């Protein structure tokens, strides 16, 4: 089931992960449910899918896509990471829809995960977004731009705060920042709960919760020099002033007040002595 985040422009789709001790990226003992997210950006008849969700949610993703873009419709794709929670529906999507372009970074070509000869044809549709790495390999200035349609672009950048090769996306049109595996802490108590935290829902998020989710994957944060990470994050949010934070998993954070509050939690989580 998909949810519209911005009329005619942005939709979140994907399934729900039951937290039962078999998921590595949540704090130990976490219970409840976590949304797994893919995002469809639309401009007229052009579409860009940001991440593809989990293989276990393949059917939901395919059915949602069929409704949104039509059976066999054309779609470009952008992977924020080449990790399996982002890429594992590439093959089923390619089997049912027309992947027009695929934007990824790093040395791994996700099309190489394909068994068959279609890999050959698809390989040529890959666009490497980090071909020009900076010397130090640090945060890449917003160099890559993915044109969704004339006049609508997704700006792509490699964040300073990352674990593996990762890209954030910025869609000025909807004020949405795609943050991949950070800001993933919004949970649901029931599988049919709200997958969006906005001003209409009671938000009981705590800094401990945010830190717990961040450290579950970024286990090195508590023993690291975090000042530069905080500065980078603060500057990013000051410059963009996002309206929506759209992570690969966890609830979508929507509305400037909500975004500011959760930025505050994240900055505190990046100051481990405060947690």
């Amino acid at each position: 089931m998909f949810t519209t985040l911005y009329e005619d422009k942005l939709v979140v789709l994907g399934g729900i992960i039951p937290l039962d001790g078999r998921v590595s990226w949540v704090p130990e003992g976490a219970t409840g449910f976590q949304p797994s997210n893919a995002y469809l950006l639309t401009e007229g008849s052009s579409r860009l899918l940001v991440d593809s969700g989990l293989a276990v949610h393949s059917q939901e993703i395919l059915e949602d896509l069929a409704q949104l873009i039509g059976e066999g419709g054309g779609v470009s794709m952008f992977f924020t990471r080449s990790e399996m929670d982002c890429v594992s529906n590439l093959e089923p999507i390619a089997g049912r829809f027309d992947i027009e372009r695929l934007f990824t970074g790093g040395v791994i070509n996700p099309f190489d995960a394909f068994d068959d000869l279609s890999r050959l044809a698809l390989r040529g549709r890959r666009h490497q977004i980090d071909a020009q790495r900076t010397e130090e390999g640090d945060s890449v200035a917003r160099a890559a731009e993915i044109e969704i349609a004339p006049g609508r672009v997704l700006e792509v950048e490699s964040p300073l705060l990352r674990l593996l090769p990762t890209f954030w996306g910025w869609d000025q049109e909807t004020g949405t920042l795609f943050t991949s595996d950070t800001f993933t802490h919004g949970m649901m108590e029931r599988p049919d709960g709200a997958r969006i935290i906005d001003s209409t829902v009671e938000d009981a998020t705590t800094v401990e919760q945010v830190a717990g989710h961040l450290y579950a994957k970024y286990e090195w944060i508590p023993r690291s020099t975090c000042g530069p990470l905080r500065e980078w994050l603060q500057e990013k949010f000051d410059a963009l002033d996002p309206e929506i934070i759209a992570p690969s998993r966890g609830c979508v954070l929507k509305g400037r007040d909500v975004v500011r509050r959760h930025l505050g939690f994240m900055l505190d989580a990046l100051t481990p002595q405060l947690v």
Partner: protein
Amino acid sequence: MEELVETMSSDLPRTVAKGVTWMSSCLPFHLEDRVIHGHNSTYLVQGDHSSILVDTGNPSSWPIISRTLDGLLDGKELTYVFPTHPELPHTGNLPRLVEKYPQIQVIGDVRDYHLFYPQIEPNLHAKVPGDKVDLGGQEFMVVEALIRDLPNTQWGFAPQAGVLFTADGFCYMHRPELDDEDPVHLPGECGLTTGELQVPIAVENAAFFTGSALYWARFANDADAVYDRVLHLIDDLGVQSVAPTHGNFISNIREVEPIIRAGHKRAYRYETAQP
């Protein structure tokens, strides 16, 4: 037609310890004047009645990995596979292995795998450090990963062979003039151990690789603590040699460890001294 299979050196497979075969696919990088390789190794540990594959290789290498296994197993089924962590070069062939060997047990920290590969859920068998499987005159033991990127990473140890399998730990490149994220070598060096290499590993190369592949090393200034623990492990277990996924097989760990440690220290970006 383009060769779909990644280069696999004719120098490999190669027996590197009692019952341990180094299998490798090398990812070719085409530079202007030459082709260089990045190791993406798998290791087969064989006992009298059972065998275990450490890491699965990249999906595009599957045809050649499958053929190599046929040759080495001589009609027997592969009993176990131990994926060190769920990145494509390490686990991407899990579905193909389960298809080829339906009884195979996937062992290790198998959190998340049911979400990425729902079709192999019945084959998943969680293990924790200290757990062993008996291969017949040869054992395989799961060990805590002391150097890792993803939290659900594990190392392995084959006591009778004295080989420690370290996934992304101890990966490096040894060609000073090259800069890419993956550890690289030239054709002809694919099957050489570190003791056989003509050009030794340089600290700068270890630093570059560590800072990219183990990105956290830029922020965490604790290389001495990390490598002291590794040396303790090496002493406690009686490790003779180290088998990383990306990089040559390490036959002289006492000589290589200080270089990797120094490179790891150099990857740290900030001036502040540790208290």
